């Protein structure tokens, strides 16, 4: 009975970090999707110089540890732009994820048969129209499985934002563990929360995949 009591107290404390983790992940993924799709289009259909620029961004960002990007945003960039710890952390994760998502969407765009672009142009669509209405809808569908993988990775990377003082799930577990000297209970609760979030994310994406499956 005492264990149940401890478990409840611990859970109630740690679960307050749930919303922070969800918000950070949502902001990061949204930023990443926008960057990823725009840069992937630029990388596949853009001017050669633009393609080089996108490749440089993608390679450099993927080469740098995410924690370093967070520090750069929080300590360096925010000398000029006033970023709160939350936004610095979430946007840094978003920029990092954007680089990975660029590669995901690039692969998906290239997987759509080139004949479709040619056919779209042949019936009088502009390149932009063809991308918007013909290529991208298929590419996004093709990207979904890999994107789901990235989403769960970003969810777990969200623990890094505590480096700038955003108290997400893992930090809350550390705080409980420091107070109660019961690390297994505290980190066990954190584990369950991450497991639940990941399973829900995976389920939601699988539903999306089924719902929007290409009829070919």
């Amino acid at each position, binding site marked *: 009975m005492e264990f149940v009591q401890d478990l409840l107290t611990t859970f109630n404390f740690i679960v307050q970090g749930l919303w922070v983790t969800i918000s950070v992940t949502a*902001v990061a993924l949204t930023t990443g999707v926008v960057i990823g799709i725009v840069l992937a289009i630029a990388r596949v259909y853009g001017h050669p110089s633009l393609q080089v620029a996108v490749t440089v961004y993608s390679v450099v960002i993927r080469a740098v540890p995410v924690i370093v990007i967070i520090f750069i945003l929080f300590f360096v960039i925010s000398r000029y732009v006033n970023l709160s710890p939350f936004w610095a952390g979430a946007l840094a994760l978003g920029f990092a994820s954007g680089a990975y998502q660029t590669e995901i969407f690039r692969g998906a765009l290239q997987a759509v048969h080139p004949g479709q672009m040619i056919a779209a142009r042949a019936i009088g669509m502009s390149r932009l129209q063809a991308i918007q209405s013909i290529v991208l809808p298929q590419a996004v569908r093709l990207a979904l499985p890999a994107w789901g993988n990235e989403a769960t990775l970003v969810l777990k990377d969200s623990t890094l934002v505590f480096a700038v003082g955003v108290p997400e799930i893992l930090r809350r577990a550390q705080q409980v563990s420091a107070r109660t000297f019961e690390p297994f209970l505290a980190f066990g609760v954190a584990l369950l929360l991450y497991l639940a979030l990941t399973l829900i994310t995976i389920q939601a994406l699988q539903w999306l995949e089924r719902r929007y499956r290409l009829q070919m």
Partner: protein
Amino acid sequence: MQKQTLIMLAFIAASLVMSACGGAPAAQPTQPAAQPTQPAAQPTQPAAQPEGKLAQIRAAGKLIVGTSADYPPYESIDENGNFVGFDMDLIRAVGEKLGVEVEIRDMPFDSLIASLQEGKIDAVIAAMQATAEREEKVDFTIPYRMTKDAFIGAGNTTITLNKPEDAAGLTIGAQTGTVQEGWIQKNLVATGLTTADKVFSYERADQAALDLASGRIQLVLMDAEPALELAKQNGLKVLLITEATAEGGKSIAIPEGASDLKAELDRIIQQLIDDGTVTQLQDKHGLP
């Protein structure tokens, strides 16, 4: 077709939020893109602020303090999410004397100095010692609490110590490379009070405590706080708690060059030590 694409994208963007919390904040993810650019117009503002850190803090009416809330009894977070502990009570008392509100922020110990340097916080209180490396980056107030050491003996020991030098001639253990071991070598061995073969070095203090319990040595000299815990767990006796063998103390870190803030905080800390507030808080949190 195009509309469907947009719906798809919106779905992806919101999928995590929606799945995990019922969709209420679906509008939120669109905000970030707009927000960071908004305050871009005021980067010159910090430079134009009033003279001196102290004046800035007074003008803001708020002292922003960083800590790493995983080190009880100095700083931790209670069930209700409040910052509690010796340091927390002390900094609130300081804030009261300064006449400003105290806002405490939890961050990793490693990020505290960098955050102070970048002006994210005004001060750090985290049971931190003013080491030479830290002094290069930030300034420190006078210590608000001196480090203390403890001599401990076996539970049934008849030894009594009134001052550290009373340990002369007894077999004594300490952790290798610590300040305490240095004190023994310098003040007991080098002065001829104790022969070198009566001094034992241990890799960890708890190993020394085991030898103490088994009667292999008569005394152990170590940090007072873990010593109290160790003595309690192993049925050992605390013989003397002293500042005489220790070096340094815990200070509040402030930005480099904030001389006005340092002067004011030094004055307040001295006042809190003199009027007994510090002693009272130490007792409240069970600190030696």
